[in-house]
């Protein structure tokens, strides 16, 4: 065994563990410990340098594998994000269309002429207006009819009498009864 070589190797090992070896020096250590003639005092270090040589290689390989996995995942997330954004846009659009959809309060209306049922909106629309006008007339007649006038007068007289009562609760209840009965 070359004692000088052994001492050189020992120094390199020390410096290796101090983290102060260069790449060439590390390569020298790997070559030495991968050989056959390793002195007895340096044998315990063999598995360490065997690990470092193969382990680092493996780590590099794992790193590249991880990098590949990470970039694939990023790409997937990117496309998932695009799909989710599109879906949200579509839903918002549908919601907007539904909200702005014209509401037809007279949907389902029709007229009958000479036994024929007509639902064409162009024909039905003027008739809707006529019928609404009749309904308004109906309400007006109801409000201004002698009966309605008489009821109105009776209510006012009764309320006038009730306003003289001091008990507010009783007065309010009595007014409710008058309004509901007539």
């Amino acid at each position: 065994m070359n004692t000088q070589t052994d001492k050189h190797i020992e120094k390199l090992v020390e410096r290796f563990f101090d983290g102060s070896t260069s790449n060439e020096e590390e390569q020298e250590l790997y070559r030495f410990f991968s050989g056959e003639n390793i002195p007895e005092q340096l044998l315990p270090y063999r598995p360490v340098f065997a690990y470092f040589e193969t382990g680092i290689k493996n780590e590099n390989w794992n790193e590249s594998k991880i990098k590949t996995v990470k970039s694939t995942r990023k790409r997937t997330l990117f496309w998932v994000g695009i799909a989710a954004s599109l879906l949200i846009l579509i839903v918002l659009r549908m919601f907007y269309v539904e909200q702005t959809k014209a509401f037809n309060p007279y949907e389902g209306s029709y007229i009958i002429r000479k036994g024929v049922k007509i639902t064409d909106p162009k024909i039905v629309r003027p008739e809707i207006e006529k019928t609404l006008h009749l309904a308004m007339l109906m309400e007006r007649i109801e409000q201004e009819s002698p009966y309605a006038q008489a009821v109105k007068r009776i209510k006012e007289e009764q309320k006038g009498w009730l306003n003289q009562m001091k008990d507010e609760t009783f007065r309010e209840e009595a007014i409710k009864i008058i309004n509901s009965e007539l």
Partner: protein
Amino acid sequence: MKKSVGMMLLFLIVSSLSMEMMAQKNLLAVVKKCDASDSQAVEMNIIRRRNKEAKTSDVLISIRINGDKKLVNEFLEAAKKDEPNTNRSISSKKGGKTYPSNLKFEDIQFMFSFEDEGNASITIKGNVPIDI
């Protein structure tokens, strides 16, 4: 016990609803007849009104009868039969005869205008139980 109380409540609700519908059954029968009629003497407008916010609706029906004395008499007879069930009724006189002009039930109101024999206008407003 609970079951019998529930049944009783259900019976009361159904019967009250039925009674409301029965109140104007004669008039509604004639209206339905007009809806199904192919007579040239009848013009009918059936308008459904819906309120978007309240999600309620009511129905307006206007019927114009031109020269069908029989149908006008049917309406008159029906009005006389249903009049006792009204919450309020108003009549008017014409040519010495009394005609109903406004009949108000719980959910439905009828307004009549009887002209010469065979001609009349009827307007109906409210919760009309006609399949439209």
